[in-house]
Protein backbone atom coordinates (compact mmCIF):
# COMPACT_ATOMS: atom_id res chain seq x y z
CA UNK A 1 0.00 0.00 0.00
CA UNK A 2 2.92 2.38 0.64
CA UNK A 3 5.47 3.43 -1.96
CA UNK A 4 9.02 2.26 -1.48
CA UNK A 5 9.98 5.81 -0.65
CA UNK A 6 7.47 5.94 2.18
CA UNK A 7 8.77 2.66 3.52
CA UNK A 8 12.36 3.91 3.40
CA UNK A 9 11.47 7.11 5.21
CA UNK A 10 9.51 5.12 7.73
CA UNK A 11 12.16 2.51 8.38
CA UNK A 12 15.06 4.95 8.63
CA UNK A 13 13.48 8.27 9.45
CA UNK A 14 15.73 11.32 9.41
CA UNK A 15 15.45 14.03 12.04
CA UNK A 16 13.80 12.06 14.80
CA UNK A 17 14.29 13.75 18.12
CA UNK A 18 14.00 16.94 20.07
CA UNK A 19 15.88 20.20 19.76
CA UNK A 20 16.80 21.60 23.10
CA UNK A 21 15.92 25.25 23.37
CA UNK A 22 14.20 25.13 20.02
CA UNK A 23 13.13 28.44 18.51
CA UNK A 24 9.72 27.12 17.56
CA UNK A 25 7.75 24.05 18.57
CA UNK A 26 4.41 22.97 17.19
CA UNK A 27 2.21 20.01 18.08
CA UNK A 28 -0.87 19.02 16.11
CA UNK A 29 -3.19 16.07 15.82
CA UNK A 30 -5.05 14.29 18.56
CA UNK A 31 -5.11 10.82 20.01
CA UNK A 32 -8.60 10.10 18.75
CA UNK A 33 -7.36 10.03 15.20
CA UNK A 34 -4.23 8.21 16.17
CA UNK A 35 -1.76 10.83 14.98
CA UNK A 36 0.18 13.37 17.00
CA UNK A 37 3.04 15.29 15.43
CA UNK A 38 5.45 17.56 17.15
CA UNK A 39 7.97 19.60 15.18
CA UNK A 40 10.95 21.42 16.61
CA UNK A 41 12.64 24.20 14.64
CA UNK A 42 15.94 25.92 15.09
CA UNK A 43 15.82 29.20 13.19
CA UNK A 44 18.63 31.63 12.66
CA UNK A 45 18.58 34.71 10.41
CA UNK A 46 15.24 33.67 9.02
CA UNK A 47 16.72 30.34 7.94
CA UNK A 48 15.64 26.97 9.31
CA UNK A 49 18.96 25.61 10.47
CA UNK A 50 17.56 22.45 11.96
CA UNK A 51 14.26 20.63 12.23
CA UNK A 52 13.35 17.58 14.26
CA UNK A 53 10.16 15.72 15.00
CA UNK A 54 8.42 13.28 17.25
CA UNK A 55 5.40 11.48 15.92
CA UNK A 56 2.85 9.13 17.36
CA UNK A 57 1.16 7.67 14.35
CA UNK A 58 1.07 5.31 11.45
CA UNK A 59 3.81 4.63 8.95
CA UNK A 60 2.69 7.47 6.72
CA UNK A 61 2.67 9.92 9.60
CA UNK A 62 6.21 9.04 10.52
CA UNK A 63 7.41 9.14 6.91
CA UNK A 64 5.80 12.51 6.19
CA UNK A 65 7.26 13.98 9.37
CA UNK A 66 10.69 12.79 8.35
CA UNK A 67 10.29 14.00 4.79
CA UNK A 68 8.91 17.39 5.75
CA UNK A 69 11.66 18.12 8.24
CA UNK A 70 14.17 17.07 5.61
CA UNK A 71 12.61 19.34 2.99
CA UNK A 72 12.57 22.50 5.11
CA UNK A 73 16.06 22.29 6.52
CA UNK A 74 18.18 25.11 5.13
CA UNK A 75 15.16 26.91 3.71
CA UNK A 76 14.09 30.42 4.61
CA UNK A 77 10.80 30.79 6.46
CA UNK A 78 9.18 32.11 3.31
CA UNK A 79 10.41 29.15 1.30
CA UNK A 80 9.35 26.73 4.03
CA UNK A 81 5.87 28.29 3.99
CA UNK A 82 5.59 27.12 0.38
CA UNK A 83 6.19 23.47 1.23
CA UNK A 84 2.67 22.16 0.85
CA UNK A 85 1.31 18.85 1.98
CA UNK A 86 1.13 17.88 -1.67
CA UNK A 87 4.83 18.59 -2.12
CA UNK A 88 5.59 16.30 0.81
CA UNK A 89 3.37 13.56 -0.53
CA UNK A 90 4.94 13.92 -3.98
CA UNK A 91 8.41 13.69 -2.51
CA UNK A 92 7.31 10.39 -1.01
CA UNK A 93 6.12 9.15 -4.42
CA UNK A 94 2.56 9.57 -3.28
CA UNK A 95 0.44 8.38 -0.38
CA UNK A 96 -2.63 6.15 -0.33
CA UNK A 97 -5.75 8.36 -0.45
CA UNK A 98 -6.74 7.45 3.08
CA UNK A 99 -3.33 8.59 4.31
CA UNK A 100 -3.27 12.01 2.63
CA UNK A 101 -4.39 13.53 5.90
CA UNK A 102 -0.97 12.65 7.32
CA UNK A 103 0.66 15.02 4.88
CA UNK A 104 -1.81 17.73 5.88
CA UNK A 105 -0.89 17.10 9.46
CA UNK A 106 2.80 17.53 8.67
CA UNK A 107 2.13 20.84 6.96
CA UNK A 108 0.06 21.93 9.93
CA UNK A 109 2.72 20.91 12.42
CA UNK A 110 5.24 23.02 10.54
CA UNK A 111 2.88 26.00 10.52
CA UNK A 112 2.20 25.54 14.22
CA UNK A 113 5.92 25.54 14.94
CA UNK A 114 6.40 28.64 12.80
CA UNK A 115 3.49 30.33 14.55
CA UNK A 116 5.12 29.51 17.85
CA UNK A 117 8.36 31.03 16.58
CA UNK A 118 6.58 34.13 15.32
CA UNK A 119 4.73 34.57 18.60
CA UNK A 120 7.86 34.21 20.68
CA UNK A 121 9.63 36.77 18.54
CA UNK A 122 6.71 39.13 18.07
CA UNK A 123 6.86 38.94 14.29
CA UNK A 124 4.24 38.16 11.68
CA UNK A 125 4.84 35.70 8.93
CA UNK A 126 3.09 36.44 5.66
CA UNK A 127 0.22 34.06 5.12
CA UNK A 128 0.42 32.30 8.48
CA UNK A 129 -2.77 31.83 10.48
CA UNK A 130 -3.04 30.50 13.99
CA UNK A 131 -3.07 26.72 14.19
CA UNK A 132 -6.44 25.05 14.36
CA UNK A 133 -6.99 21.48 15.24
CA UNK A 134 -8.49 20.23 12.05
CA UNK A 135 -8.59 16.76 13.42
CA UNK A 136 -11.74 17.41 15.33
CA UNK A 137 -13.50 16.80 12.05
CA UNK A 138 -15.31 13.62 11.68
CA UNK A 139 -13.59 10.93 9.74
CA UNK A 140 -16.37 9.41 7.79
CA UNK A 141 -14.41 6.61 6.24
CA UNK A 142 -15.93 3.32 7.15
CA UNK A 143 -14.04 0.63 8.95
CA UNK A 144 -13.11 -2.69 7.52
CA UNK A 145 -12.51 -5.36 10.04
CA UNK A 146 -11.74 -8.99 9.88
Amino acid at each position, binding site marked *: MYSQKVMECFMNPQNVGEIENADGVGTVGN*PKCGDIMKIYLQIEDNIIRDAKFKTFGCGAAIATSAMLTQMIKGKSIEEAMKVTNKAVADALDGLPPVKMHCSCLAEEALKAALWNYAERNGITIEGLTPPANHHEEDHA*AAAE*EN
Partner: protein
Amino acid sequence: MIYLDHAATTPVKPEVLEAMLPYFTEHYGNPSSVYKIAQRNKKAIDDARAVVAGHLGAQPNEIFFTSGGTEADNWAIKGIAAALKEKGNHVITTNIEHHAVLHPCQYLEKQGYEVTYLEVNADGLVSAEQVEAAIRPETILITIMYANNEIGTIMPIAEIGAVAKKHGITFHTDAVQAVGQLPIDVRAQNIDLLSLSGHKFYGPKGTGALYIRRGLKLPPLLHGGGQERSRRAGTENVPGIVGLATALDLAYQDLEAKNAKLKALRDYLIDGIEARIPYCRLNGHREARLPNNVNVSFEFIEGESLLLLLDMEGIAASSGSACTSGSLDPSHVLLALGLPYEQAHGSIRFTLGENNTREEMDVVLAKLPPFVEKLRSMSPLYEDFVRQNS
Protein backbone atom coordinates in the same frame (compact mmCIF):
# COMPACT_ATOMS: atom_id res chain seq x y z
CA MET B 1 6.60 -15.71 6.95
CA ILE B 2 5.17 -15.95 10.45
CA TYR B 3 1.45 -15.60 9.99
CA LEU B 4 -0.28 -14.48 13.16
CA ASP B 5 -3.54 -13.17 11.80
CA HIS B 6 -5.74 -16.25 11.76
CA ALA B 7 -8.71 -14.30 13.07
CA ALA B 8 -8.63 -12.23 9.88
CA THR B 9 -8.52 -15.25 7.65
CA THR B 10 -6.86 -18.62 7.26
CA PRO B 11 -5.34 -20.42 4.32
CA VAL B 12 -7.40 -23.19 2.78
CA LYS B 13 -5.96 -26.49 3.96
CA PRO B 14 -4.62 -28.76 1.21
CA GLU B 15 -7.15 -31.47 2.10
CA VAL B 16 -9.94 -28.92 1.85
CA LEU B 17 -8.82 -27.72 -1.55
CA GLU B 18 -8.49 -31.33 -2.62
CA ALA B 19 -12.09 -31.98 -1.66
CA MET B 20 -13.26 -28.90 -3.52
CA LEU B 21 -11.37 -29.39 -6.77
CA PRO B 22 -13.61 -31.94 -8.51
CA TYR B 23 -16.58 -29.62 -8.12
CA PHE B 24 -15.05 -26.89 -10.23
CA THR B 25 -14.29 -28.72 -13.42
CA GLU B 26 -15.77 -32.18 -13.27
CA HIS B 27 -18.87 -32.30 -11.07
CA TYR B 28 -20.04 -28.90 -12.16
CA GLY B 29 -23.72 -29.53 -12.73
CA ASN B 30 -26.30 -27.22 -11.24
CA PRO B 31 -27.63 -29.04 -8.16
CA SER B 32 -31.18 -28.09 -9.09
CA SER B 33 -31.06 -29.98 -12.36
CA VAL B 34 -32.70 -33.32 -12.93
CA TYR B 35 -29.94 -35.22 -14.70
CA LYS B 36 -27.52 -37.52 -12.99
CA ILE B 37 -24.38 -35.42 -12.99
CA ALA B 38 -26.22 -32.70 -11.15
CA GLN B 39 -27.72 -35.03 -8.60
CA ARG B 40 -24.26 -35.91 -7.40
CA ASN B 41 -23.77 -32.28 -6.52
CA LYS B 42 -27.05 -32.17 -4.71
CA LYS B 43 -25.84 -35.04 -2.63
CA ALA B 44 -22.53 -33.29 -1.95
CA ILE B 45 -24.48 -30.35 -0.55
CA ASP B 46 -26.70 -32.60 1.55
CA ASP B 47 -23.65 -34.36 2.96
CA ALA B 48 -22.01 -31.04 3.77
CA ARG B 49 -25.16 -29.88 5.50
CA ALA B 50 -25.17 -32.97 7.68
CA VAL B 51 -21.53 -32.42 8.62
CA VAL B 52 -22.11 -28.81 9.63
CA ALA B 53 -25.24 -29.72 11.56
CA GLY B 54 -23.39 -32.48 13.37
CA HIS B 55 -20.74 -30.14 14.70
CA LEU B 56 -23.30 -27.67 16.01
CA GLY B 57 -25.67 -30.17 17.58
CA ALA B 58 -28.27 -29.19 15.00
CA GLN B 59 -30.34 -31.05 12.42
CA PRO B 60 -29.30 -30.91 8.76
CA ASN B 61 -32.48 -29.11 7.77
CA GLU B 62 -31.57 -26.32 10.19
CA ILE B 63 -28.44 -25.38 8.23
CA PHE B 64 -28.57 -22.86 5.37
CA PHE B 65 -25.51 -22.01 3.36
CA THR B 66 -24.65 -18.36 2.69
CA SER B 67 -21.86 -16.34 1.12
CA GLY B 68 -20.18 -15.70 4.46
CA GLY B 69 -20.55 -14.54 8.03
CA THR B 70 -21.71 -11.10 7.00
CA GLU B 71 -24.62 -12.41 4.97
CA ALA B 72 -25.60 -14.78 7.79
CA ASP B 73 -25.57 -11.92 10.32
CA ASN B 74 -27.55 -9.59 8.06
CA TRP B 75 -30.06 -12.28 7.30
CA ALA B 76 -30.63 -13.24 10.93
CA ILE B 77 -30.95 -9.72 12.25
CA LYS B 78 -32.93 -8.04 9.50
CA GLY B 79 -35.00 -11.17 9.03
CA ILE B 80 -36.13 -11.45 12.63
CA ALA B 81 -36.77 -7.72 12.78
CA ALA B 82 -39.04 -7.96 9.73
CA ALA B 83 -40.75 -11.15 10.86
CA LEU B 84 -41.55 -9.89 14.34
CA LYS B 85 -42.21 -6.23 13.71
CA GLU B 86 -45.82 -6.62 14.81
CA LYS B 87 -44.59 -8.09 18.07
CA GLY B 88 -42.07 -5.47 18.99
CA ASN B 89 -39.29 -3.19 17.89
CA HIS B 90 -36.52 -3.71 20.40
CA VAL B 91 -33.21 -5.47 19.89
CA ILE B 92 -30.53 -6.20 22.47
CA THR B 93 -26.88 -6.49 21.49
CA THR B 94 -23.48 -5.42 22.82
CA ASN B 95 -21.18 -2.55 22.06
CA ILE B 96 -18.37 -4.85 20.86
CA GLU B 97 -20.09 -6.74 18.07
CA HIS B 98 -18.49 -7.06 14.67
CA HIS B 99 -19.67 -4.47 12.16
CA ALA B 100 -21.57 -7.24 10.40
CA VAL B 101 -23.90 -7.11 13.43
CA LEU B 102 -23.54 -3.47 14.48
CA HIS B 103 -24.27 -2.03 11.07
CA PRO B 104 -27.42 -4.07 10.53
CA CYS B 105 -28.51 -2.93 14.01
CA GLN B 106 -27.85 0.69 13.09
CA TYR B 107 -29.78 0.12 9.90
CA LEU B 108 -32.70 -1.14 11.99
CA GLU B 109 -32.52 1.97 14.14
CA LYS B 110 -33.02 4.06 11.01
CA GLN B 111 -36.11 1.98 10.28
CA GLY B 112 -37.57 2.87 13.67
CA TYR B 113 -36.37 -0.03 15.77
CA GLU B 114 -34.73 0.53 19.12
CA VAL B 115 -31.44 -1.11 19.92
CA THR B 116 -29.82 -1.50 23.33
CA TYR B 117 -26.06 -1.79 23.05
CA LEU B 118 -25.07 -3.44 26.32
CA GLU B 119 -21.80 -2.14 27.66
CA VAL B 120 -19.15 -4.76 28.25
CA ASN B 121 -16.97 -4.66 31.34
CA ALA B 122 -13.24 -3.99 31.26
CA ASP B 123 -12.62 -7.58 30.14
CA GLY B 124 -15.07 -7.34 27.28
CA LEU B 125 -17.81 -9.42 28.86
CA VAL B 126 -21.54 -8.91 29.24
CA SER B 127 -23.44 -10.97 31.75
CA ALA B 128 -26.71 -12.82 31.38
CA GLU B 129 -28.05 -10.55 34.13
CA GLN B 130 -27.30 -7.48 32.03
CA VAL B 131 -29.16 -9.07 29.16
CA GLU B 132 -32.13 -9.95 31.34
CA ALA B 133 -32.28 -6.45 32.78
CA ALA B 134 -32.43 -4.98 29.29
CA ILE B 135 -35.41 -7.05 28.20
CA ARG B 136 -38.61 -5.15 27.56
CA PRO B 137 -42.05 -6.34 26.55
CA GLU B 138 -41.24 -5.28 23.00
CA THR B 139 -37.87 -7.06 22.79
CA ILE B 140 -37.84 -9.35 19.75
CA LEU B 141 -34.19 -10.26 19.35
CA ILE B 142 -31.06 -10.75 21.39
CA THR B 143 -27.94 -10.85 19.23
CA ILE B 144 -24.68 -11.34 21.07
CA MET B 145 -21.44 -12.60 19.62
CA TYR B 146 -20.02 -15.90 20.76
CA ALA B 147 -16.43 -14.70 20.86
CA ASN B 148 -15.01 -11.33 20.00
CA ASN B 149 -12.83 -11.02 16.92
CA GLU B 150 -10.43 -8.45 18.35
CA ILE B 151 -9.91 -9.39 21.95
CA GLY B 152 -11.04 -13.02 21.85
CA THR B 153 -13.35 -12.74 24.84
CA ILE B 154 -15.88 -15.55 25.04
CA MET B 155 -19.38 -14.53 26.08
CA PRO B 156 -21.52 -16.60 28.50
CA ILE B 157 -23.65 -17.89 25.63
CA ALA B 158 -25.43 -20.72 27.44
CA GLU B 159 -26.50 -18.38 30.24
CA ILE B 160 -27.71 -15.78 27.77
CA GLY B 161 -29.50 -18.52 25.85
CA ALA B 162 -31.27 -19.58 29.02
CA VAL B 163 -32.42 -16.02 29.67
CA ALA B 164 -33.63 -15.68 26.10
CA LYS B 165 -35.53 -18.93 26.36
CA LYS B 166 -37.09 -18.00 29.69
CA HIS B 167 -38.47 -14.81 28.13
CA GLY B 168 -39.37 -16.39 24.82
CA ILE B 169 -37.08 -14.09 22.85
CA THR B 170 -35.19 -15.16 19.72
CA PHE B 171 -31.46 -15.48 20.35
CA HIS B 172 -28.89 -15.03 17.59
CA THR B 173 -25.18 -15.40 18.07
CA ASP B 174 -22.45 -14.35 15.65
CA ALA B 175 -20.19 -17.35 16.18
CA VAL B 176 -17.85 -16.54 13.31
CA GLN B 177 -14.81 -16.55 15.59
CA ALA B 178 -15.96 -19.45 17.73
CA VAL B 179 -16.98 -22.09 15.21
CA GLY B 180 -14.13 -24.49 14.58
CA GLN B 181 -12.39 -23.42 17.77
CA LEU B 182 -14.94 -23.99 20.53
CA PRO B 183 -17.39 -26.86 21.04
CA ILE B 184 -20.89 -25.67 20.27
CA ASP B 185 -24.27 -27.19 21.04
CA VAL B 186 -27.14 -25.06 19.84
CA ARG B 187 -29.72 -27.15 21.71
CA ALA B 188 -27.98 -27.13 25.07
CA GLN B 189 -27.12 -23.46 24.69
CA ASN B 190 -30.60 -22.46 23.54
CA ILE B 191 -29.36 -20.76 20.42
CA ASP B 192 -32.00 -20.00 17.81
CA LEU B 193 -29.76 -18.56 15.10
CA LEU B 194 -26.02 -18.89 14.66
CA SER B 195 -23.73 -17.40 12.01
CA LEU B 196 -20.48 -18.92 10.84
CA SER B 197 -17.91 -18.19 8.14
CA GLY B 198 -15.78 -20.77 6.31
CA HIS B 199 -12.56 -18.82 5.88
CA LYS B 200 -12.04 -18.51 9.62
CA PHE B 201 -11.38 -22.25 10.02
CA TYR B 202 -9.24 -23.06 6.98
CA GLY B 203 -12.19 -23.16 4.59
CA PRO B 204 -12.71 -20.99 1.53
CA LYS B 205 -13.58 -17.31 1.55
CA GLY B 206 -17.08 -16.41 0.42
CA THR B 207 -18.72 -19.29 2.25
CA GLY B 208 -20.76 -19.35 5.42
CA ALA B 209 -23.89 -20.68 6.99
CA LEU B 210 -26.77 -19.69 9.17
CA TYR B 211 -28.24 -22.19 11.59
CA ILE B 212 -31.96 -21.53 11.94
CA ARG B 213 -33.73 -23.44 14.67
CA ARG B 214 -36.46 -25.59 13.20
CA GLY B 215 -39.81 -23.86 13.24
CA LEU B 216 -38.36 -20.37 13.49
CA LYS B 217 -39.85 -18.04 10.91
CA LEU B 218 -37.16 -16.14 9.06
CA PRO B 219 -37.99 -14.52 5.73
CA PRO B 220 -35.29 -14.71 3.04
CA LEU B 221 -32.71 -11.98 2.62
CA LEU B 222 -32.00 -13.07 -0.95
CA HIS B 223 -35.20 -13.71 -2.90
CA GLY B 224 -35.18 -15.75 -6.09
CA GLY B 225 -34.93 -19.41 -6.99
CA GLY B 226 -35.94 -22.19 -4.64
CA GLN B 227 -32.48 -23.19 -3.43
CA GLU B 228 -31.90 -23.93 0.26
CA ARG B 229 -35.55 -24.86 0.54
CA SER B 230 -36.59 -21.46 -0.80
CA ARG B 231 -34.96 -19.61 2.07
CA ARG B 232 -31.73 -18.54 0.37
CA ALA B 233 -31.87 -18.10 -3.37
CA GLY B 234 -28.93 -18.35 -5.75
CA THR B 235 -27.12 -21.17 -7.47
CA GLU B 236 -25.27 -23.04 -4.74
CA ASN B 237 -21.51 -22.56 -4.47
CA VAL B 238 -20.93 -26.30 -4.53
CA PRO B 239 -17.12 -26.33 -4.22
CA GLY B 240 -17.36 -23.70 -1.52
CA ILE B 241 -19.96 -25.64 0.45
CA VAL B 242 -17.94 -28.83 0.19
CA GLY B 243 -14.85 -26.91 1.28
CA LEU B 244 -16.57 -25.36 4.25
CA ALA B 245 -17.82 -28.70 5.53
CA THR B 246 -14.50 -30.45 4.96
CA ALA B 247 -12.69 -27.68 6.81
CA LEU B 248 -15.13 -27.76 9.71
CA ASP B 249 -14.72 -31.48 10.05
CA LEU B 250 -10.96 -31.10 10.19
CA ALA B 251 -11.23 -28.22 12.62
CA TYR B 252 -13.14 -30.32 15.12
CA GLN B 253 -10.73 -33.24 14.83
CA ASP B 254 -8.54 -33.47 17.92
CA LEU B 255 -9.93 -30.17 19.07
CA GLU B 256 -8.82 -30.55 22.66
CA ALA B 257 -5.24 -31.37 21.78
CA LYS B 258 -5.06 -28.54 19.29
CA ASN B 259 -6.52 -26.08 21.73
CA ALA B 260 -4.18 -27.17 24.48
CA LYS B 261 -1.27 -26.51 22.15
CA LEU B 262 -2.69 -23.15 21.06
CA LYS B 263 -3.31 -22.06 24.62
CA ALA B 264 0.22 -22.94 25.61
CA LEU B 265 1.63 -20.93 22.70
CA ARG B 266 -0.74 -18.07 23.41
CA ASP B 267 0.26 -17.90 27.05
CA TYR B 268 3.90 -18.18 26.16
CA LEU B 269 3.53 -15.16 23.91
CA ILE B 270 1.53 -13.17 26.43
CA ASP B 271 3.90 -13.92 29.25
CA GLY B 272 6.90 -13.21 27.07
CA ILE B 273 5.57 -9.82 26.01
CA GLU B 274 4.67 -8.86 29.54
CA ALA B 275 8.09 -9.88 30.77
CA ARG B 276 10.00 -8.03 28.08
CA ILE B 277 8.05 -4.86 27.42
CA PRO B 278 7.02 -2.28 30.02
CA TYR B 279 3.83 -0.26 29.73
CA CYS B 280 1.71 -2.77 27.91
CA ARG B 281 -1.57 -4.43 28.77
CA LEU B 282 -3.41 -7.50 27.64
CA ASN B 283 -6.85 -6.66 26.28
CA GLY B 284 -9.75 -9.01 26.89
CA HIS B 285 -10.45 -11.55 29.58
CA ARG B 286 -7.46 -13.60 30.64
CA GLU B 287 -9.30 -16.95 30.82
CA ALA B 288 -12.61 -16.56 28.98
CA ARG B 289 -10.64 -16.08 25.83
CA LEU B 290 -10.20 -17.83 22.49
CA PRO B 291 -7.27 -20.24 22.61
CA ASN B 292 -5.55 -18.39 19.79
CA ASN B 293 -6.02 -14.74 20.68
CA VAL B 294 -3.43 -12.31 22.02
CA ASN B 295 -4.31 -8.62 22.01
CA VAL B 296 -1.92 -6.18 23.61
CA SER B 297 -1.83 -2.40 23.92
CA PHE B 298 1.65 -0.95 23.78
CA GLU B 299 1.45 2.47 25.34
CA PHE B 300 2.73 5.58 23.57
CA ILE B 301 2.95 4.03 20.12
CA GLU B 302 0.55 3.53 17.28
CA GLY B 303 -0.35 0.09 16.05
CA GLU B 304 0.07 0.40 12.33
CA SER B 305 3.65 1.55 12.53
CA LEU B 306 4.45 -1.47 14.71
CA LEU B 307 2.67 -3.72 12.23
CA LEU B 308 4.78 -2.33 9.42
CA LEU B 309 7.99 -3.02 11.29
CA LEU B 310 6.84 -6.55 12.01
CA ASP B 311 5.78 -6.97 8.38
CA MET B 312 9.28 -6.01 7.25
CA GLU B 313 10.50 -8.96 9.27
CA GLY B 314 7.90 -11.26 7.76
CA ILE B 315 5.58 -11.25 10.75
CA ALA B 316 1.92 -10.73 9.84
CA ALA B 317 -0.26 -9.45 12.65
CA SER B 318 -3.16 -7.09 12.84
CA SER B 319 -3.87 -3.82 14.46
CA GLY B 320 -6.49 -3.74 17.13
CA SER B 321 -7.43 -0.50 15.58
CA ALA B 322 -9.31 -0.50 12.34
CA CYS B 323 -7.19 2.47 11.27
CA THR B 324 -5.01 0.31 9.13
CA SER B 325 -7.76 -0.57 6.82
CA GLY B 326 -9.06 2.74 5.72
CA SER B 327 -10.69 4.22 8.73
CA LEU B 328 -9.13 6.62 11.16
CA ASP B 329 -11.39 5.69 13.99
CA PRO B 330 -9.88 3.60 16.74
CA SER B 331 -11.40 0.22 17.41
CA HIS B 332 -14.85 0.47 18.96
CA VAL B 333 -14.09 -2.74 20.83
CA LEU B 334 -11.04 -1.37 22.61
CA LEU B 335 -12.80 1.89 23.40
CA ALA B 336 -15.64 -0.16 24.86
CA LEU B 337 -13.16 -1.72 27.29
CA GLY B 338 -12.46 1.78 28.55
CA LEU B 339 -9.10 2.26 26.86
CA PRO B 340 -8.08 5.85 26.14
CA TYR B 341 -7.79 6.69 22.46
CA GLU B 342 -4.04 6.50 22.26
CA GLN B 343 -4.01 3.02 23.78
CA ALA B 344 -6.79 1.89 21.51
CA HIS B 345 -4.62 3.05 18.63
CA GLY B 346 -1.60 1.28 20.07
CA SER B 347 -2.94 -2.27 20.10
CA ILE B 348 -1.81 -5.30 18.20
CA ARG B 349 -3.67 -8.54 17.71
CA PHE B 350 -1.78 -11.78 17.25
CA THR B 351 -4.06 -14.68 16.39
CA LEU B 352 -2.36 -18.03 16.23
CA GLY B 353 -3.05 -21.00 14.04
CA GLU B 354 -2.53 -24.73 14.07
CA ASN B 355 0.84 -24.49 12.40
CA ASN B 356 2.48 -21.82 14.49
CA THR B 357 5.43 -22.93 16.59
CA ARG B 358 7.21 -21.93 19.73
CA GLU B 359 10.21 -20.95 17.60
CA GLU B 360 8.04 -18.47 15.80
CA MET B 361 6.93 -17.02 19.11
CA ASP B 362 10.55 -16.66 20.05
CA VAL B 363 11.20 -14.69 16.87
CA VAL B 364 8.31 -12.40 17.68
CA LEU B 365 9.47 -11.99 21.25
CA ALA B 366 12.94 -11.12 20.05
CA LYS B 367 11.79 -8.57 17.48
CA LEU B 368 9.06 -6.85 19.41
CA PRO B 369 11.01 -5.11 22.20
CA PRO B 370 13.42 -3.17 19.95
CA PHE B 371 10.58 -2.20 17.62
CA VAL B 372 8.50 -0.91 20.47
CA GLU B 373 11.54 0.85 21.80
CA LYS B 374 12.26 2.45 18.45
CA LEU B 375 8.72 3.74 18.03
CA ARG B 376 8.61 5.02 21.58
CA SER B 377 11.80 6.94 20.97
CA MET B 378 9.94 8.75 18.18
CA SER B 379 6.80 9.31 20.18
CA PRO B 380 5.87 12.71 21.60
CA LEU B 381 3.60 10.91 24.05
CA TYR B 382 6.50 8.92 25.43
CA GLU B 383 8.57 12.09 25.59
CA ASP B 384 5.87 13.69 27.74
CA PHE B 385 5.55 10.61 29.91
CA VAL B 386 9.27 10.38 30.54
CA ARG B 387 9.46 14.10 31.31
CA GLN B 388 6.60 13.86 33.78
CA ASN B 389 8.13 10.86 35.51
CA SER B 390 11.70 12.00 35.76
